[in-house]
């Protein structure tokens, strides 16, 4: 096959990139080399549009052990242990084939985590779909949930948190972001570096097939139609294989045989080999004849670019390969020595006695960088300038509350997470839906201490769409609030930045503003960004998704038994609101629902004002003072109150002062606000604590009875029995997607 600029363009390289490839090599690349460069320099692998911006995110902190750049981030959690986590997108594959796309998304992120030597202990999933009434959406929802559950349940990791929302902008481009959290010993973290010249390189796991080989080449002349038919563009996940890989890897990691390890994800063997060599400043020499294959007759190009799942590349200490192979044999895994580490700084690939590729690792790993223009969209100021007040034609408060509770973005997601095993591995302390964050126990190595890690995952994309900078800051604040509500201290965050086409200046502006907001808020709140992923070009028919910087934040709970849920407890508890009493309708769920669009100016996050409330709630939970805590988010105070009442199966009587409009008071949203409940004996301490930190506390009622009654001033504005609210909230999701 003749390699020229035309073929390079068909591979998605630009003329400039092709020129620098030729220059870097000092010659025209071989066909295999062109394939390798095109995947390594793709947006997906090279982060060429986003890298300079990502560099501005805060990534250090006292607890940070491994920051961005490795397979996953690692944060110290005491007792010689680290939490290892990362989030990743699988949007496009899930749209093509929802079950397998979502499944392999979960598989990929779990591999990133156990590659580091961490045993996965929790999964979270963040999903965005088009309108729930569309048949296509329903098919996608069922398939994606089935795929996530099918993989995670079998692999044996509990799915403890997540986020699901629907919006027109995702109709032709759904989002499926998967997060995995693992725990490792701090002194036994494994990195993806190919060090030690002469060390053998091992291939382990599934055999290589023609899966997901880079699309641009599909139409190229080299292949007959028959060969094309053999190249499926859908990869099928095998959670059983992954479970074997996990156990075998962790077993091998208890020895000192393993030098470096990297899973084969996007861009398969190419990216693993290149990245491992580049990180170590070494070279690798590989013989493709030794790669375990699923099909006969695969070319070097195909072997290098295949994205077959459940495969690992490892470097082991020279002379110790038999020990490694014995472990894989025990677990019935295919494994082979396919090459060795060199000092050349080059990735050399041989097959059938021919050198198919010989390129500097750094040339491929560094990749191009592009500066993309960004511009603030016209008209955004006008949208911010609109008054976000009462909405004409909105239902009266009780009806509005019921409608909000039943809408699928707010309604219980039990239809989803009942399909996920959320308890396997005997660690789940707080299950999905029971609180603002899922909580999973972590035993100290000596078994004497039971601490826990909390996970919250999601994105208030309405806010980000309205104002990418402020919205992203609010997203960080909400994640911290979700953790605070279970009593967890935030220790790190991972993100998955889902945006449209960065070549459009207005989309680039969203990305830049959002990253700036995330960075500012993370710095203010002291939460390092330790890993992440960027997914661009999320558009269909030229229209982009709403900007969606998904965040998954991890928190530490010192004593697992103290973690608090959101449900009101017994009758006779005091109910109070922490933070601002009234909210803002700009960007709110209420506005979206009843005005069918969002406008106005978001409440800006302000650390001096909002930070203390976040601290106070966590402190009160740690001290054992609270019976429940729930952050006020989608749907405002009324929805939060109703959710706590439904979860506790108990009523509540609430009295609020007439302040601002009733809609703002009941349904307005804003940062760092909570509904808490506690036994009357704790009231003094709680008041004192709030006063000391200058946090607003408004005692507004008590639990009891079987209905929710909210008075504003002298008038009762909401009065309905909990059973009615519960019915709307519990069944809303299933009804919306036409499933019981």
């Amino acid at each position, binding site marked *: 096959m003749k390699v020229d600029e035309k073929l390079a363009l068909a591979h998605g390289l630009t003329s400039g990139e092709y020129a620098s490839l030729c220059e870097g090599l000092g010659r025209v690349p071989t066909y295999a080399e062109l394939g390798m460069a095109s995947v390594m320099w793709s947006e997906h692998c090279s982060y060429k549009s986003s890298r300079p911006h990502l560099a501005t995110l805060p990534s250090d902190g006292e607890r940070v052990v491994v920051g961005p750049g490795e397979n996953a981030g690692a944060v110290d959690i005491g007792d010689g242990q680290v939490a290892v986590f990362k989030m990743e997108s699988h949007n496009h594959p899930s749209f093509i084939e929802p079950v397998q796309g979502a499944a392999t998304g979960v598989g990929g992120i779990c591999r990133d985590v156990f590659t580091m030597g961490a045993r996965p202990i929790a999964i979270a999933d963040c999903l965005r779909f088009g309108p729930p009434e569309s048949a296509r959406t329903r098919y996608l929802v069922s398939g994606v949930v089935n795929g996530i559950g099918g993989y995670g349940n*079998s692999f044996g990791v509990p799915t403890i948190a997540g986020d699901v929302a629907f919006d027109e902008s995702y109709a032709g481009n759904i989002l499926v972001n998967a997060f995995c959290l693992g725990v490792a010993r701090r002194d036994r973290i494994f990195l993806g570096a190919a060090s030690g010249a002469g060390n053998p390189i091992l291939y382990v796991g599934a055999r290589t097939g023609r899966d997901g080989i880079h699309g641009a080449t599909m139409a190229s002349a080299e292949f007959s139609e028959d060969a094309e038919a053999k190249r499926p563009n859908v990869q099928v996940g095998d959670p059983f294989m992954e479970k074997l890989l996990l156990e075998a890897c962790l077993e091998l990691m208890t020895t000192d045989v393993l030098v470096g390890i990297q899973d084969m994800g996007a861009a398969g063997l190419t990216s693993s080999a290149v990245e491992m060599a580049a990180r170590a400043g070494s070279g690798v020499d590989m013989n493709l004849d030794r790669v375990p294959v699923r099909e006969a007759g695969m070319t070097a190009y195909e072997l290098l670019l295949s994205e077959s799942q459940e495969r690992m590349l490892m470097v082991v200490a020279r002379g110790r390969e038999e020990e490694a192979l014995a472990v894989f044999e025990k677990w019935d895994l295919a494994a082979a020595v396919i090459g060795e580490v060199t000092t050349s700084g080059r990735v050399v690939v041989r097959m059938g006695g021919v050198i198919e590729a010989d390129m500097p690792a750094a040339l491929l790993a560094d990749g191009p960088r592009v500066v993309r223009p960004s511009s603030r969209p016209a008209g955004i100021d006008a949208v911010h300038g609109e008054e976000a007040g009462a909405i004409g034609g909105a239902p009266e408060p009780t009806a509005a509350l019921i409608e909000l509770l039943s809408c699928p973005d707010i309604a219980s997601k039990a239809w989803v997470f009942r399909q996920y095993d959320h308890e*396997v591995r005997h*660690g789940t302390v707080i299950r999905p839906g029971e609180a603002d964050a899922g909580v999973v126990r972590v035993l100290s190595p000596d078994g004497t201490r039971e601490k826990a890690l909390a996970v919250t995952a999601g994105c208030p994309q309405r806010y980000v769409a309205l104002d990418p900078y402020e919205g992203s800051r609010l997203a960080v604040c909400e994640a911290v609030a979700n953790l605070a509500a279970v009593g967890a201290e935030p220790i790190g965050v991972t993100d998955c930045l889902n945006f449209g086409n960065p070549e459009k200046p207005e989309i680039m502006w969203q990305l830049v503003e959002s990253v700036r907001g995330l960075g500012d808020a993370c710095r203010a709140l002291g939460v390092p960004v330790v890993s992440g992923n960027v997914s661009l070009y999320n558009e269909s028919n030229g229209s982009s998704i709403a900007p969606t910087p998904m965040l998954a934040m991890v928190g530490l709970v010192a004593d697992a038994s103290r973690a608090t849920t959101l449900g009101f407890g017994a009758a006779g508890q005091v109910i109070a609101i922490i933070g601002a009493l009234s909210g803002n309708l700009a960007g709110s769920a209420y506005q979206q629902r009843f005005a069918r669009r969002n406008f106005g100016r978001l409440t800006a996050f302000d650390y001096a004002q909002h930070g203390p409330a976040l601290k106070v709630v966590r402190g009160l939970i740690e001290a054992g003072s609270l019976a429940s805590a729930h952050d006020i988010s989608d749907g405002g105070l009324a929805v939060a109150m109703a959710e706590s009442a439904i979860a506790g199966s108990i009523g509540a009587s609430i009295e609020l002062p007439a302040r601002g409009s009733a809609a703002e008071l009941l349904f307005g949203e804003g940062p760092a606000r909570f509904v808490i409940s506690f036994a009357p004996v704790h009231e003094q301490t709680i008041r004192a604590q709030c006063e000391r930190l200058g946090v607003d506390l408004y005692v507004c009622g008590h639990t009891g009875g079987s209905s929710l009654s909210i008075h504003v001033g002298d008038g009762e504005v909401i009065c309905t029995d909990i059973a009615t609210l519960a019915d709307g909230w519990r069944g809303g999701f299933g009804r919306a997607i036409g499933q019981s």
Partner: protein
Amino acid sequence: MLTFGVVRFPGSNCDDDALYAVAKVLAPAGMTGKMIWHKERTLGGVDALILPGGFSYGDYLRAGAMAAHSPIMAAVKDFARGGGPVLGICNGFQILCEAGLLEGALVRNASLRFECADIWVRVEGRPTPFSHAIPAGRILSMAVAHGAGRYVHDDVDRLEGEGRVVFRYVTADGDVTEVANPNGSQSNIAGVTNAAGNVVGLMPHPERACEAVLGGGSEDGRLLFLSALAQVNGTPARVG
């Protein structure tokens, strides 16, 4: 003292959970345990066996089908035929059925979905090592998490007549209803025993219901293991 052997098949994923429940949580009560790899041919001195939950061999073909042919299963069958107490939990139950140590079969949930939820089961039927010390009629709170837990048997009447249904899905109040049944099992059957009464399989997870700090907070699962302990110790105990 009671030593449990927990058989680890490729794809087992509640093996650690089961071992933790008996060897850590219930150690003070006098239990211990060890893992047994499926490629072994002998059990080594254990008093009782647990076939844990999970997705042995990915649950491919049929849940439990391939694990039922593991090398260790010959020893498991000998142990069971000798009257040794054997408990199959979830995938372990499926394996016992596939291996012919229990009657019936477990097929795909009627909902066609994986169901992870809190349920209640009533203890009934003839005494078994894992239930004899629990008062008959006692309702236990546990969780299920499975996609193929619908129990089918071609002669449920006979099974019932022989007192071999030992756990049945009920509501919290003890009613046998469709709502209480997470998978569409015949007669709400959650667990059964063999003719000799020493092999027990159930779909719910007692090993996940041993510590108040976890999930639903139930510790009812302990009763099954304490019952086995009482049997081995020969103490006419009553638990729960």
